[in-house]
Structures are given as C-alpha cells and as structure tokens.
C-alpha cells in the first residue's frame, strides 16, 4: 500500500503540489506522474509544498532533477517549500539547494516567482 500522495491546487497561475507521506523508490513514480501532468497541461510555475512530506530518498530527488530543465525551459521553475528538517537534510547532503529554490514557506515560494530564480549552477 502506498503511503504517499500528491494533490494539486492553484494560486493564480502557480500550481501547488501538496506532498504527503514518504517519497521513496516505490512512490517516486506517483510524483513523476504528477509533475508530468503539470508539464503536459502547461503548468510551469510549480511550488512543491513539503510540510507533510515525512521522508525522501534519492529516487524522489531524481524526480525533481528530471523535471527541473523542462520546467525552466518552459519559462517556469520548481520551488520547494516547507520541508521538514529531516527531509531538507537529504536535499542539503547532495547540494540540491544550489540548484533548487528552497523556501521556508509556501507564501515565500509563491512570492519568489516575482523575483529571480536561485543560482542555477
């Protein structure tokens, strides 16, 4: 049984993906399908709300990596918000904060779409 779910909502032209549960090698396909749906439907301003995300493995991080270029090529970005310390640690260990805009709150992430993206090294 999957202990992961992703749901969508919109704040103006920004699509917020609410992640809940544990994102691992089993559930990564569900997250991948969700991001693919956004790209297919032309949503390119994405905020991943991670406050209810309990766990992430490298498979989950790989999904973020798979979509960052297509989304940025479409003129948007994937911003990450609200990560619990345990989950942020995994992003941080692999240096993903250099590549992704990671904010404390969803409101900050939404506001950031009016500013410049993070360092895209």
């Amino acid at each position: 049984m999957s202990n992961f779910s992703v749901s969508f909502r919109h704040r103006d032209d920004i699509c917020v993906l609410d992640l809940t549960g544990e994102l691992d090698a089993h559930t990564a396909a569900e997250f991948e399908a969700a991001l693919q749906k956004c790209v297919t439907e032309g949503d390119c301003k994405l905020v991943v709300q991670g406050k209810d995300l309990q766990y992430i493995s490298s498979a989950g991080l790989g999904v973020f990596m798979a979509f960052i270029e297509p989304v940025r090529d479409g003129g948007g970005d994937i911003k990450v918000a609200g990560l619990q310390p345990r989950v942020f640690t995994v992003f941080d260990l692999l240096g993903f904060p250099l590549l992704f805009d990671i904010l404390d709150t969803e409101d900050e992430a939404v506001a950031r779409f009016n500013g410049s993206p993070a360092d895209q090294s």
Partner: protein
Amino acid sequence: MARCSHKLSIPSRTSQLARVRRCVAVWAEEAGLSQKDADALQMAVDEACANAIEHGYAGKPDGTVDVLATLKSNAIIVTVRHHGAPFNPDLHQRAALTDMRKNRRKHGYGLHLMHKLVDEVRFKASGRTSEVRLTKCRNGTKT
C-alpha cells in the same frame, strides 16, 4: 563483541521498502542511536535495499533481499544481501556531485547518500551473493 542480531527478509519489491525502514528504526532505537543517527541509518539501508531490488534483481519481484543487523557496544552494522546481479563499486565510480548536478543526472545519488549517512560502507561479492555492509557508530561524525 556483538550484543544481538536481527534479520528481515523481503521479496525484491520496492513496496517493501517502507517495512524495512520501520524495522531499521526499531533496531536503531535498540542500539541506542540518537534520532538523527537513526534517521541516517534508515535512509542508508533504504538506498541499499532499493539498489538491490532495482539493479541487483533488475526489478524482478521474485528475488529475496536479506537485511541483517548486528548491534555492537558502540555501533550497529546493517548488512543488505541479495542474490541478483553483483554490484562492483570499482566499475561504478561515483561521479562528482557537482558534475552530477550540472548534468542534471537523475540517478546515482543513492551511493553518495549512503557514504554521507553512515560511518562505513563496504561492498562484497562472493559467488552469487552480493552484500553491502553499513556501519553506523553511536556518536559518529556523519550526518
């Protein structure tokens, strides 16, 4: 000297990973690891099991992955063993993380994570058996 040991055998399905993490959490608590160290060990074992399932067994669901834990006075050692295709770390040199990020690599981060999360990672292959041994020290220096 080993204090006690535990063993969990799972079918080679990623749906079993959550079960592995729950077991490792219990073992880590029994070993006296801090919550932070227990989380790190849990993630490292999860990555090792995912590698065994996805690469060792190439996603075939009829294999078995054994997860064995030995609790020592100052550490817990978790061995992940399978009988699929062997993993030779010499043939899979870890690309530099900076290069992986620049090239937007989607795979290959698990091995990096394992090395960052536990104090020692050792690979061993013998005949049809492959294993990775993860050592997490109490009050170790890793995340």
